[in-house]
């Protein structure tokens, strides 16, 4: 069981999950715990000889009931490949899996924020190479989405809507568009190739999306990640963060009341978008969080978003 401690100086929660020290770390190809369990093979987390998409409770959870959740989402039973190489139908199905988990975890009393994410590459701490993502159900409102809600207040409306409109008008930092999503390197990106992929319409969460929008969300994400892989002609490490409306009730966190199960959350804040934080600034150089970033909280960037957007646009075009 993990323990939450409040860091008074920073005003933030720190989660102590010391059992995670023992979690599986870069196992050999033949001992991947996310493979299906094949006849005569070693047992894995999924005791079936094949599957399409599997979700299970993390064996080494950062959060667990009755104080949150930690789930693993396995995209395919194939050990090789990545989100970018999934068949289109599988990627679209994955959006429906995310939607299902957001609905079910968000309905729980002990979960205030459902966070879907993927860590890709050893550069961001991946311990298993099998294509997969994760979901944390936080028993409190974490600071980054809280900052986004604060931006709504500051801008007097939906911040992602306003920022997307500004990026569309400017145009220099756009990297990809389709009928449902707009992707751009933000005006004040922290990372050289940081991208925000934002729903064109105001959709607080996956539950508010039309099926066609889910299909185009999957398509947009795959186009972007294929472009990333093409950028330096190597698998591109990143953290992918899905930001949506909080699911907290007024009783648990002071937010607005939440709609009944099977209906979208009806609180004020949140606009579904996916943020990518890639640590590479060149093909072989990583951006490190050092003195200014960690000690003062100010990112120092070696690149301009407008220039990064040109090269990333070209890479996406090359990959499609």
């Amino acid at each position, binding site marked *: 069981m993990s323990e939450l401690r409040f860091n008074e100086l920073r005003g933030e929660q720190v989660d102590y999950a010391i059992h995670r020290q023992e979690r599986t770390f870069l196992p050999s190809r033949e001992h991947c715990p996310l493979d299906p*369990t094949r006849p005569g093979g070693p047992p894995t*987390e*999924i*005791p*079936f*000889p094949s*599957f*399409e*998409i*599997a*979700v*299970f*409770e993390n*064996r080494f959870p950062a959060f667990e*009931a*009755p104080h949150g*959740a930690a789930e693993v989402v396995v995209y395919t039973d194939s050990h090789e490949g990545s989100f970018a190489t999934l068949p289109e*139908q*599988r990627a679209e*199905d994955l959006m*429906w*899996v995310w*939607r*299902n988990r957001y609905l079910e975890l968000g*309905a*729980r*009393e*002990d*979960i205030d924020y459902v966070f879907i994410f993927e860590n890709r590459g050893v550069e961001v701490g991946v311990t298993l190479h099998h294509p997969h993502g994760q979901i944390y159900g936080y028993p409190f409102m974490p600071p980054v989405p809280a900052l986004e809600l604060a931006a709504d207040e500051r801008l007097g409306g939906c911040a992602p809507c306003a920022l997307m409109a500004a990026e569309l008008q400017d145009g220099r930092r756009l990297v990809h568009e389709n009928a449902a999503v707009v992707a751009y390197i933000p005006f004040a990106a922290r990372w050289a190739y940081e991208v925000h992929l934002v729903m064109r319409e105001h959709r607080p969460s996956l539950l508010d999306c039309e*099926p066609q929008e889910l299909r185009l969300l999957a398509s947009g994400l795959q186009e972007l990640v294929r472009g990333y892989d093409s950028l330096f002609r190597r698998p591109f490490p990143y953290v992918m963060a899905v930001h949506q409306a909080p*699911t907290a*009730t*007024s*009783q*648990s966190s002071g937010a607005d*009341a*939440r*709609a*009944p*199960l099977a209906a979208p959350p009806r609180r004020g804040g949140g606009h579904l978008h996916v943020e990518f934080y890639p640590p590479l600034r060149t093909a072989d150089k990583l951006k490190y969080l050092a003195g200014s970033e960690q000690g003062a909280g100010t990112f120092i960037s070696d690149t301009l978003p407008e220039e990064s957007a040109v090269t990333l646009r070209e890479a996406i075009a090359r990959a499609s």
Partner: protein
Amino acid sequence: MARKRHPQSPSSAASESAGEERREEHAQERFGPLAVERHVKDDGRALILYAHAERERA
């Protein structure tokens, strides 16, 4: 005011089974285009398998 549910294991889950016959018993639930199978692993953790329903029916 809407009430949220207390955490629980998937309600339709039965004890873990490694057999395909067991999988078919679970293939009744649907979510959008997906067929959903709920299981509980030997150590009590939830496992959910999702499959594209058109393919599931084929």
